[in-house]
C-alpha cells in the first residue's frame, strides 16, 4: 500500500522532533540556563531564533524544552496505556460486578473535565515530574479504558478466546496472549492521539505555571515566560507555541493514517 504524502510528512516531522529531543545535549548550541545575549534579540547568526526574556538562546531552550515535553508526554501516555488497557481488558474478560465497578469509576472520572481535576489535585500535591506524569497518565487512562474495553468486548466472544478459557488458561494468559495481539492495531492509532493529548495537557499546565518548574522549561513554560514580549511586538513566545502546534499536527497526521489503514483492513465504512 502506498503511503500518502501527509503521512510521510508526519513521520518525518515526528522523527525529527524525537531525534532533537534524544540528542538535545549534543545538538543545542548553548546551555539551558546560560544568558548568552541581550533581552529579546531578533534572530541572528549566533542565535538562530533570537533570545528570550533574560537573554537565553531560544533555539537551545526549544531543543531542551522539547526533550522534557516529549519525555513527560511519552511517559504519561505509556502509563495511561498500560493502566487503561490492562483494566479495560480485565473488565471485558471478567464482566459482571468487576466490570460494573471499574466502568462506573471511569464514568465518574470522566464526568469532570480533566483540566479541572488536574488543577484540584495539583493544588495539594508537590509539583514535580513524577507527580505530573502520574496525574496526566491516570486521567488519560480513563479514555484508553473505554476504548480497550469496547475493543476487547468484541474479541472476548470469539471462539479462540472461549477455547483458551475452556482449556483452563489463566486470566493473564487470556488477556496478554489472546486479546492483546488482536486488539493492537486500533490501540496503536489511539496511542498517537493520547500522546498529543498529553503534549497539550502538559503544555497547558506549564503555561498556567502548574507544570514543569523553572529552571527547567518545557514549551508551555517558555510561552509563559515570553508572553509579555508579544505586546511589544517581540515574537519570542510564538516559537515554542509553533513547536507545540507542529508536533501535535505531525503526530495527528501519522495517527490518522494508521487509523485509516486499520479500518480499511477490517473492510470498515468509508473505504
Amino acid at each position: 500500500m502506498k503511503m500518502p504524502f501527509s503521512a510521510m510528512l508526519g513521520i518525518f516531522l515526528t522523527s525529527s522532533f524525537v531525534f532533537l529531543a534524544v540528542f538535545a545535549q549534543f545538538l543545542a548550541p548553548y546551555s539551558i540556563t546560560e544568558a548568552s545575549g541581550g533581552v529579546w534579540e531578533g534572530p541572528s547568526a549566533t542565535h538562530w531564533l533570537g533570545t528570550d526574556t533574560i537573554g537565553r538562546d531560544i533555539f537551545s531552550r526549544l531543543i531542551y524544552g522539547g526533550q522534557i515535553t516529549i519525555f513527560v508526554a511519552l511517559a504519561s501516555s505509556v502509563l495511561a496505556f498500560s493502566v487503561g488497557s490492562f483494566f479495560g481488558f480485565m473488565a471485558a474478560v471478567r464482566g459482571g460486578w468487576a466490570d460494573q465497578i471499574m466502568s462506573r469509576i471511569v464514568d465518574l472520572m470522566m464526568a469532570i473535565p480533566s483540566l479541572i481535576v488536574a488543577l484540584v489535585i495539583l493544588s495539594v500535591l508537590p509539583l514535580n515530574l513524577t507527580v505530573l506524569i502520574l496525574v496526566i497518565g491516570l486521567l488519560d487512562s480513563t479514555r484508553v479504558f473505554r476504548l480497550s474495553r469496547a475493543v476487547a468486548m468484541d474479541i472476548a466472544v470469539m471462539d479462540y478466546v472461549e477455547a483458551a478459557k475452556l482449556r483452563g488458561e489463566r486470566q493473564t494468559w487470556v488477556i496478554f496472549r489472546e486479546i492483546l495481539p488482536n486488539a493492537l492495531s486500533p490501540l496503536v492509532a489511539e496511542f498517537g492521539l493520547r500522546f498529543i493529548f498529553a503534549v497539550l495537557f502538559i503544555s497547558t499546565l506549564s503555561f498556567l505555571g502548574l507544570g514543569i518548574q523553572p529552571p527547567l522549561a518545557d514549551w508551555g513554560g517558555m510561552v509563559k515566560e515570553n508572553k509579555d514580549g508579544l505586546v511589544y511586538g517581540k515574537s519570542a513566545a510564538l516559537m515554542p507555541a509553533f513547536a507545540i502546534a507542529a508536533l501535535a499536527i505531525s503526530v495527528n497526521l501519522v495517527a490518522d493514517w494508521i487509523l485509516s489503514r486499520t479500518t480499511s483492513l477490517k473492510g470498515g465504512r468509508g473505504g
Partner: protein
Amino acid sequence: MHPVLKLVVQRLALGLVLLLAVSAVIFLGIEALPGDTAQAILGQAATEVSLANLREKLGLNEPALTRYFVWLWAALHGDLGVALTNGVDIATAIGQRFGNTLFLAGCAAVISVPLAITLGLVAARYNGRWPDKVISGLTLTTISLPEFVAAYFVIFLLTQVFPIFQPVAMVFPGMSFWAKLNAVALPVIVLVMVVLAHMMRMTRAAILNVMQSAYIETAELKGLTPMQVIWRHAFPNAIAPIVSVVILNLAYLVVGVVVVEVVFGYNALGQYLVDHVTKRDLPVVQAVGMIFAAVYIGLNILADVISIGANPRLRHPK
C-alpha cells in the same frame, strides 16, 4: 407516566447522584492525598504548636467524613467558607466573577453555534469537494492547537501584524455593554476558534450519517435540489445529534475558558481558580472546581434531555 417524562426524571436524578459523587471525590479524594492544609498555610518553618493550634481552629482534627458533610451542608446553603490566603468570603468572590465568565462564554457560544452549524451544512453539502476540503483542513489545524497557543497566534496577528484590538481584556462593574463587548472581542475570537472546529466536524458527521438513509435517496430521486434535501429532510432528523454536539462543545468551553481567561488576564472564575491553585488555597479550589464540574455535568444532562425530547419514537409511543 409518559415515557419521555420518566426518562427525563431518570436523567436528572442520575445527574444529582453524579454531582454528589463528584463532590465526595473533590473533598475526600483530596483528603486522601498526602499533604496537610495547616502545613500548607504556615509553610515549612511552622512549629508543632502553631500547627496544632491551626488544625484545631480549622476543625482539621474532626474525621474527614464529618467535615465533608459539614462542608456539603454549608455549601448547599450558599456558604462556601472563606479563602485561606486572604480570609475573603468565597461565595461573594465567586458571584461577580461567575458573571464575567458567563458573559465571555455566552458571547463565544452566540457566535460559534450558528457559524458551526452553517459551516457543517455547507461541508456536508459539498462532501468531498473543495469547500469541504478547505473547511475540514482548517478545522483539523485548529483542533491540534491547545487554547493558549491559538490565543497567542491570534493576539500576535490582531494586535501586532494588524493592530485592531487591545491585547488585554479588562472588564469592571459599571462598564457599558458595548465597552464590555469590545473588551472581550479577542478572547471571544479565540474561544470561537477552539470550539468551532469540534462543533463543525461533528455537525458534518451527523448530517452525512443521516444522508445515507433511504428517504434521502427518495427525496433526491423526486428531484429536490441538494440544499432542499439537506434542509427539509436531513437537518430535522439530524437535530438530536447536532444539539447534543453543540451542548457537549459548550461544556468544552468551560475548560477552554479557564486557559483563555489566564491568557488575557480576564478577571473571572478560571483566573480565580488558577491563582488559588498556585497559592494552594484548598477551600477556594474545591468550591470553584465544584462549580465548573456542576456546569459541565448540567450541560451534559441537558444534552441528554434534549435528545430524548427530539426523538419522535419516544414522544409518540405506540
